[in-house]
């Protein structure tokens, strides 16, 4: 990746992070809401090569750890996002990709979002994070999945265009 690509991507990442922290976080949405940063990172990861996806996940996770409302130790989201982005890219990149088409990408992002929440829940208690009652966890997982399913199709075309204009690869059919 060239310095120019890294610079432009960093600006895009920071902008999405500021939108998440200052705009999306204003709303106490029923069911827990969504994270625009997670949707963005996963959608970019799915359109990128594996090593780029790993860097995308690492950067997104680092920003999520920098968020003051992140409850786990610093680095927990970095690790989870890194693994999730690498995994989704492993399955999604190339002509023989696992998902095929925009609808497949949307559902894979929702599934990946759910899986990384579960990874957080599993790793959280090991690192001393309190996670709450079972019913609360269930409704949060359900709520965030529904919100992600609702928001992803709206923002995916924009994220795909951004990705294409920066990396010159990764179109959705």
């Amino acid at each position: 990746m060239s310095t120019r690509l890294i610079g432009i991507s960093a600006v895009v990442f920071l902008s999405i992070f500021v939108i998440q922290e200052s705009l999306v976080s204003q709303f106490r949405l029923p069911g827990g809401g969504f994270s625009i940063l997670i949707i963005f990172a996963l959608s970019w990861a799915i359109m990128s090569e594996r090593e780029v996806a790993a860097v995308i996940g690492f950067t997104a996770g680092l920003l999520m750890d920098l968020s003051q409302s992140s409850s786990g130790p610093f680095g927990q989201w970095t690790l989870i996002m890194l693994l999730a982005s690498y995994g989704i890219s492993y399955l999604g990149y190339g002509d023989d990709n696992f998902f095929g088409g925009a609808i497949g990408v949307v559902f894979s992002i929702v599934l990946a979002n759910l899986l990384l929440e579960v990874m957080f829940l599993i790793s959280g208690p090991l690192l001393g994070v309190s996670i709450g009652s079972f019913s609360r966890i269930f409704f949060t997982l359900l709520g965030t999945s529904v919100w992600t399913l609702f928001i992803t199709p709206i923002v995916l075309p924009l994220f795909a265009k951004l990705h294409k204009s920066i990396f010159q690869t990764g179109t959705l059919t």
Partner: protein
Amino acid sequence: MSRGGQSRTRLLLVILIVTSLFLVTLDLRGVQLLDNLKQGTQNVLSPFQRISNSALSPIKNFFSDLSLLGRSGSQIEKLEKENASLKLELLERANADVQLDQLKNILDLAGTAGYKIVNAKVISQGSYQSFAQTVTIGSGSNAGIAQNMTVLSEYGIAGIVKEVYPNSALIQLAIDPGFRIGVRIVNSQQIGFLSGRGERSAVLQLLDNSTDINEGDVLMSRGSIANRPFVPGVPVGYITTVDNSAGTIAQSATVRYYTDFSKLSVLAVVVGGPKSNPGDALVPQKPQPIPTPTVTVFVTPTPTPSN
């Protein structure tokens, strides 16, 4: 992908994983650098949050109302524009009224107990992705707020100050799964610990297993040494169900907080505790039952025609 490319990807992945684990280890060992990074980020973000909050607060819950504006015809458009601006003003006014009400109730609560408080608006909600329950307020260390201070809502306990920045502070809400508070029951003076569990109800564990607790019993905060993190005498909640299962070591119950955590717009941080323990001065009054009007219906039978 070529063999060289694959091994490069693997190497990069390993480096990034090791870096992540290194960061986790540093944080768990309490390295100051990471705290400073978080603090710097929040200092940069808080002006954005403040602007977004003031721009969005009138319209947060009224998307449906605003989406109906602007339909057809120049006259209608003009009237609708006026209507929209009046609606916006009204919404802003309604929003200000709600905040004023909350502020008044908080001041009443703090005044009765003799707490010295700093009021602040909620400027951001915490992320649900981490299963934490937090909010950010628009005042920080510049206003005298420090870590581990009690935070009040208009009805009672709201949480504690978890992190402080110059112009903002992160509040751990009482419903956060990591929140613990020492409480006493008003009537029996039993003491116990209350733990948040992510929703408005919390779990109470009593230290003494011998006495009875009842549904409706009111809980107040016990207070901490030097009033931090908790000042004494703050209303916490009331018992909704008592767990009487045999064989339990400690008696437990489910408690409902007085504070409605979905409607927090103004909070108060207790920067100075009371000179004397307010005791039960803040126990909320039980709601007075409103008499239901009895409706009596008189029915007069219509005479049947006789043949």
